[in-house]
């Protein structure tokens, strides 16, 4: 599986990272190096092996479905690059 500049551009778009057109060939090259390394996994016989979901055979704990936290709007907004009137502000989303 080889990655071309078009695929690299698509991946960058999916990852929401702006990559200039002239940087795409080098990026595609790096992907190919890493994916070439990963291809070794195809040598392994994984027939009948379940994909690991949890490294420790523990059941995740559950708790009562109740509110345990909250009421701290100021703290939540304190680190926002742009907070207005109690909300996170972003550029216009809907035309």
């Amino acid at each position: 599986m080889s990655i071309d500049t078009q695929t690299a551009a698509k991946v960058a778009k999916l990852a929401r990272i702006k990559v200039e057109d002239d940087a795409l060939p080098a990026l595609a090259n790096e992907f190919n190096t890493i994916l070439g390394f990963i291809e070794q996994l195809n040598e392994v016989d994984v027939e009948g092996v379940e994909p690991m979901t949890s490294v420790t055979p523990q059941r995740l704990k559950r708790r009562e479905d109740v509110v345990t936290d909250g009421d701290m709007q100021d703290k939540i907004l304190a680190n926002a690059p742009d907070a207005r009137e109690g909300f996170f502000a972003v550029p216009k989303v809907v035309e």
Partner: protein
Amino acid sequence: MTDLNKLTLAEARDKLRAKEITSVELTEACLKAVDAADTLNAFVHKTPEIALQQAKAADARLAAGDAPAMCGLPVGIKDLFCTKGVASQAASRILEGFKPEYESTVTSKLFDAGSVMLGKLNMDEFAMGSSNETSVYGNAVNPWKVDDRQLTPGGSSGGSASAVAADLCLAATGTDTGGSIRQPCAFTGTVGIKPTYGRVSRWGIVAFASSLDQAGPMTKTVRDSAIMLGAMAGHDPKDSTSADLAVPDFEAMLTGDIRGKKIGIPKEYRLDGTPDEIVKLWDDGTAMLKDAGAQIVDISLPHTKYALPAYYVIAPAEASSNLARYDGVRYGRRAKLAAGDGITEMYEKTRAEGFGHEVQRRVMVGTYVLSAGFYDAYYNRARRVRALIKRDFDLAFEAGVDAILTPATPSAAFGLGEMSDEDPVKMYLNDVFTVTVNLAGLPGVSVPTGLDAQGLPLGLQLIGRPWEEGDLLNTAYALEQAAGFVAKPQRWW
């Protein structure tokens, strides 16, 4: 008294309890050492006011006879841990200016146990790297030096390793996703343990790959690791993967008696191209454990070879998901936008200028292996291989092996910048001996056991059974005693 910063945790604790020294004196000695070591670029956010305030409080507790495990002991905190009101940037530009409104569980526990925080420590950006060269703060530098070159302290917990090795703090926190505690410890002649997955809460630690990340102590001795791990570990309802198991008194388990213990030597770790001195170090370590009364057995971990490729699917996949939260909306940096830019441009520009090159690369590799059409071929296959890697260890432990001895790294510390022209995979090979342990969720400890021909420290790794850090640390203690590693870097900074 001079050079209080050179004490171990255990020595300083005993002197504090005996009222020979105060925490304020100890903390001032460390702060002075920190200020004189800016060349190492280990501390990136210093917190002297917090430190002195905590030291005074610790002295009051000591005077009142209430001295918990870490009371009055100055430590450094990796920048990956959220610390309330103190910059916590994961060494990334995208978290510039971020000051958490909350305290991570690990730092809360350390503070409850009386620890003093000297500041935040350098690291690779989002813990992605093996040389501390991807940090927005610039490189951390290894206090060990043999010629004109500045050497890497390893990564990602490079600042932690550098600070402990240079006696700037008595100990530090680290995190380990593929070797980020153990490799820097091996490069700096210090001791570090990655606990069993679930032993230490991940809450409040900036997430890289959630199924692999674990925090642990980085210290001057095995005893210190036992003391500090006890203070960091324990169940936390805020981390659903944290184990509801009692934390034993790890220090009390350090008897040094390993007679009859079965130590496995995995043949697959004897890689082609491993330098002779690493092989010799490993053979010497094996002989030391044998002399201490352990039984040495050859074992096989047949899927070892596939650990790194599996890791470089799973870790980027989880990272691409975890790092989706850095979008320029809720915290950290937002890119300057042009007229007419919408929300998509905001995301793309923010992430392009906020993430460094290695982080961008891993996020995109992760995005690719999770994308439609490739999920099964890459991600699910890697998780199957991971199950096989874990099974290799399960079988060894079922056969009666108590711990496994391997090299910690394939080389000693290398020069900063020496790997910059290599392809990324070359750098990834640094973690070849450590990454299996994260994939299998096991505890692993790095112990300094010798110097290479140039005079740089080398370490061996011991891998233990799940939840048996106490037994593992005891074996490490026996190895430490037999190796008698006492070399320290000569001060040049």
